[in-house]
């Protein structure tokens, strides 16, 4: 997800304004799909809009790998940036907070307030590190179900997410078919291909080979900062596209680069794209935990809706939600055909499903950007007669 920008306001609708974070502390033990246990956990979340009388207007938003629960608005006057999907969520916006009560929580295993590897293990009084149990996309969804139970929400008008958020949205429809009425999954996949796993492995290698990683036992505030920054720089390229990068940076150079005869002068930032990636890497390590990065990328790699039978339609047989999958033509991380495969399988299972493709130049992260076509699509999907 892009760290740059999002400092402007959206002229198409109002702002949600100031928002507060909440913590849901679940004291009921949680068993993870891979077999691990948590005696308790916390999910940090935000809500927008108002719950209606019959509790039928709840939309759950799912964040992507490096996203968080802060979807829209600001926490204080000092906040320079709004939440990551501020332009699509708010009064009068495609996800209209005058109509819907919107919830987004930081995923289980995360590092933005929910329990994850950097949290204190109540049994030892120290950060979990790698003692934190392995987490799956399914675990993220089951933890969110506990949050909904706590909030008294029994039905979801829609579950919406892109990338890893799209995986969670699909998982909701499979794991709890009676709860979500609509699924809107963007730039996602039913299982990653080899290339996506390969990129994740490079990222994990960069983290784990940084001496600062210390087998996951780094103290708070320290850690594999170089490795995590490199992982981020590399991953960030996969979220963009050739055309997108070319349009944004081309071969533009920094003016400060004065190369003399000494080769040592030649490896500082020269091209604008280098500067951009270094900034992305640096800002990322300040807000993200390296171990969460390992856990989440592993959860992505293992996510496989084809299951043991290899039959995706079989996985979808109990789905009840109406589903819309949106692919982006320039997305080469989770390319259009992987998004299409989800809908083919849903249709084969005779489910109410649609595939629409947005033509945008900016690669995988296109779903996070301004696009009137995407706004219209989201609005249409939410308003359509059921």
């Amino acid at each position, binding site marked *: 997800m892009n760290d740059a920008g999002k400092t402007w306001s959206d002229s198409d609708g109002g702002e949600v304004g100031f928002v507060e974070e909440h913590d849901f502390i679940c004291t009921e033990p949680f068993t993870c799909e891979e077999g691990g246990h948590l005696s308790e956990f916390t999910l940090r979340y935000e809500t927008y809009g108002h719950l209606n009388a019959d509790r039928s207007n709840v939309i759950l938003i799912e964040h992507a790998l490096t996203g968080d629960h802060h979807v829209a608005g600001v926490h204080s006057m000092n906040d320079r940036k709004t939440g990551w999907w501020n332009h699509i969520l708010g009064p009068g916006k495609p996800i209209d907070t005058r109509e819907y009560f919107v919830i987004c929580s930081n995923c289980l295993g995360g590092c933005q307030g929910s329990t994850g590897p950097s949290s204190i293990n109540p049994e030892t009084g120290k950060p979990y590190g790698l003692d934190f149990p392995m987490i799956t996309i399914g675990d993220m969804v089951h933890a969110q179900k506990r949050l909904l139970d706590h909030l008294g929400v029994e039905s979801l008008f829609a579950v919406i997410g892109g990338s890893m958020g799209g995986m969670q949205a699909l998982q909701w429809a499979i794991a709890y078919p009676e709860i979500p009425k609509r699924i809107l999954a963007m730039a996602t996949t039913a299982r990653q291909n080899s290339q996506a796993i390969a990129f994740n492995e490079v990222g994990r290698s960069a983290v784990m080979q940084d001496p600062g990683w210390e087998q996951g036992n780094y103290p708070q505030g320290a850690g594999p900062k170089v490795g995590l920054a490199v992982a981020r720089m590399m991953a960030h390229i996969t979220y963009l596209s050739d055309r997108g990068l070319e349009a944004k940076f081309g071969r533009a150079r920094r003016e400060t680069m004065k190369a003399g005869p000494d080769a040592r002068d030649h490896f500082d930032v020269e091209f604008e794209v280098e500067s951009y990636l270094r900034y992305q890497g640096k800002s990322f390590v300040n807000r993200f935990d390296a171990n969460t990065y390992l856990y989440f990328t592993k959860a992505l790699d293992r996510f496989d809706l084809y299951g043991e039978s290899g039959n995706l339609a079989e996985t979808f047989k109990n789905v009840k939600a109406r589903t819309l999958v949106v692919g982006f033509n320039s997305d080469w991380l989770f390319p259009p055909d992987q998004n299409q495969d989800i809908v*083919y399988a849903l249709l*084969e299972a005779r489910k109410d*499903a649609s595939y*629409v*493709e947005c033509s945008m130049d900016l690669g995988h992260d296109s779903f996070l950007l301004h696009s009137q076509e995407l706004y*219209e699509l989201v609005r*249409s999907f939410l308003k359509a*007669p*059921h």
Partner: protein
Amino acid sequence: MSQAHQKRQVDFQVIAEWVDPGSTVLDLGCGRGVLLEFLKTTKDVFGVGVDVSQSKATSCVKRGIPIFQGDVDAVLNRFSVNAFDRVIFSRTVEELQKPQRTLSRALEVGRSVTVGFINHGFWVNRFNLALFGKRTVNEVYPKAWQESRPRNPFSLSEFEGFCREEGIAVRRRRCLSGNWTDDQKLLPNLLAGYVIYDLEKES
């Protein structure tokens, strides 16, 4: 209702007549999903539309009609044999890149196939070309050639010749006169403006 609007929906009644209640339908070149909406309401079908245009796909989403945005051939190739009870081409065939290949695949994916098309053997179309050396511009084809999508006009008799050669069984046929409303039984290749076929693969 304007004449153009009426003509846009002229084949709905006939198409719906041949659709079994509760059956599964694939509408190729579904546009904004109006036909599927009609079939969903009147016949309770499980219907899926295919259209290449994003704005049309969005209109289908808005109607609550399942839509697969993409190329007709690419989508057809992804469905298995007999995946649908019926595949519908409503004014789509004349815009296909390779009609023979697409129709033959559609006859595999659908147990039955409906094809509705404008008969370019209709006398007015012949007259315009013969007398003025121009193709017909009317409420159905409102745009001049340079603003129109590529099309491959054909006549009733050409289509039936094709069906004979391919061994495609014509189960039913409805020929509508120039007003696209009344039945046209006499000399249909000359006097029918619009024709609709119910096809099956010859068993």
